[in-house]
């Protein structure tokens, strides 16, 4: 197995794992390889997190490496920063992405800056795993996708996997990275299945992936929006529109070239991201493409993110706040003048 495998598709016949299983496998493999890797967070040990992503790790690695913490997101994130500086490779678990609000100081003023402020002398090889994604009927404080904040911060790397294959490879790369990496998992994808090779491989940070090739329009999509884009692409095919689906996979470092090249080729682009649409990821990616493919675009880059409202609880309202296959299909159709 090569050390690095940026391809989308694992070899034919590869066994399937769920997204959650892929994450767990990445952690287990890295913990076996490197005794300084440890996990800390709320209910990560016996419970294996409320999403059961970490089930079994306590049993294999014991209480010293899989640590239940108090409900102190700032405190244990700060502890992880210090541990990372001094020889450990902590993987911190922030149960809901909404709670990264509590970790901003530790991540932004500390983790992201330690290396630079010390003139390159200290390093912070830590990973923060957290979640994102709405439509789980969890209301405004448990449904946000706030990754744009961390993307804005020099010194951090930000990863948004969209398949089990990428999840495993990117998480392993994140753990081996010498920098603080924030890893966002969409809660709604944990049960998504896909081929995942056994054993060691990494997906390098900073390499986008074309999840579907196409000619007429580029759908740049992150995280769970990749599935939405792929679904829309099927609908579009039916009306004779060939959509290319590009997944940046890591928001920082950002593989601008792959995005721009695709938009140059198709001359139309839609950006899909589940964060709030305004002042977020869709703005950056749209701007990169609008600039990079300026002379090739036939229409303005279209942005589709979460509506500018706190996520409502009521199902019909909540469903209206995020892009769906149908709304993406409509937008793409319009953009292509069909």
């Amino acid at each position, binding site marked *: 197995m090569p050390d690095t495998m940026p391809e989308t598709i694992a070899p034919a016949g590869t066994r399937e794992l769920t997204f959650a299983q892929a994450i767990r496998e990445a952690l287990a493999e890295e913990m076996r390889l490197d005794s300084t890797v440890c996990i800390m967070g*709320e*209910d990560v*040990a*016996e*419970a294996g997190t*409320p999403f059961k992503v970490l089930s079994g790790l306590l049993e294999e690695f014991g209480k010293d490496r899989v640590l*239940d*913490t*108090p*409900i*102190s997101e*700032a*405190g244990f994130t700060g502890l992880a920063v210090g541990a990372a500086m001094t020889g450990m490779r902590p993987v911190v678990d922030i149960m809901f992405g*909404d*709670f990264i609000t*509590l970790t901003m100081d530790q991540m932004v003023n500390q983790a992201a800056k330690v290396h630079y402020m010390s003139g390159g002398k200290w390093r912070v090889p830590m990973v923060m795993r957290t979640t994102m994604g709405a439509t*789980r*009927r*969890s*209301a*405004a*404080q*448990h449904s946000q996708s706030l990754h744009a904040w961390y993307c804005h911060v020099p010194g951090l790397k930000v990863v948004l996997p969209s398949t089990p294959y990428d999840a495993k490879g990117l998480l392993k790369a994140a753990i081996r990275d010498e920098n603080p990496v924030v890893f966002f998992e969409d809660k709604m994808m944990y049960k998504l299945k896909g081929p995942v090779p056994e054993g060691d491989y990494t997906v390098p940070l900073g390499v986008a992936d074309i999840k579907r090739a196409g000619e007429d329009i580029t759908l740049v999509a992150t995280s769970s929006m990749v599935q939405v884009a792929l679904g829309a692409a099927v609908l579009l095919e039916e009306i004779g529109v060939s959509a290319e689906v590009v997944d940046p996979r890591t928001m920082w470092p950002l593989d601008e070239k792959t995005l721009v090249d695709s938009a140059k080729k198709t001359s139309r682009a839609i950006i899909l991201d589940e964060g709030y649409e305004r002042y977020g990821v869709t703005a950056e990616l749209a701007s990169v493409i609008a600039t990079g493919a300026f002379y090739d675009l036939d229409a303005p880059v279209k942005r589709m993110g979460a*509506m*500018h*409202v*706190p996520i*409502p*609880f*009521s*199902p*019909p*309202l909540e469903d*209206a*706040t995020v892009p769906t296959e149908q709304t993406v299909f409509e937008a793409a159709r319009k953009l292509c003048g069909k």
Partner: protein
Amino acid sequence: MTTAAEPKEASEKIDLLLRMYRQMVAIRQFEGQVNELYTRALMPGLAHLYIGEEAIAVGVCEALDRTDYVTSTHRGHGHCLAKGASPDLMFAELLGKKAGYCKGKGGSMHIADPATGNLGANAIVCGSAGIATGAAFSAKRLGNGRVAVCFFGEGALGQGVLYEVMNLAQLFKLPVIYVCENNLYTEYTHFSETTAGDILTRATAFGLDAASVDGQDVRVVHETAKRLVDRARRGDGPSFLLCNTYRYHGHHVGDINREYYRSKQEEQEWKTQRDPIANFGKWLIEQKLADAATLAQVQTELEGEMKKAVEFAVAAPYPGVSEVEEDVYA
């Protein structure tokens, strides 16, 4: 004081006791219906049941005026009801219906109701500690004599902001009571694994008055809360009330298999020996303040009320999709 006052006082006291009984039963039945709605797949998402902890919400809220403030948690139905919310509008909210307290926008974890001083349940652990402290700040500045109660689970002791606001409350001598419901578990972790040192000292260290009570005994909760509320209203500043309790059900309605974090035996002991409703009912009968038939009637009446409330909520319409963009800005 005239002698005539005495029977009146006594009857008021009996009224209070029976009201507290009724409220505890109402909460338990409400939560029973919530569980039912979940298992019948009529409720979107999850809910965190308050069953087993009823004596705290009721004992504390009966020490408050309607205009006093409370803040609540993800496990908040009990606090809302005890502060005076209507079951029908609560169920409607839990089902995401337009008729709900928050027009369906909040759901189980965000019920708020200005009419009963309910500043809102909160799905961020310890998320309302600042809000409750701020309400007490307003009460003091505006001189309206109100007090604020901040309910939270012992898991919130892990959040630093709690210590920040207790310090502020003491410095500003604010009329706020921090009520810690120690039900022994956060989600799936025993509190002893997440809580070093001594809980009460964490409050007294900041100068707060602090008390620890049996949270399964509504009379003790109420008497202590009353003392702390009176104290706050007098201008003597903030306090901390630790209530030792237990949740009978899972962390949320979907948490069915709990043996990996707590034993069935432990659950059984709390349910059979320390049930706040059963024990209080027994005491009322022993003291001849009520007979078994009266208490049974309370149950029956409330069952009817709750069923009707659920029916109302189930039948109520969802908000129109266009409402999604309303209420973002005032």
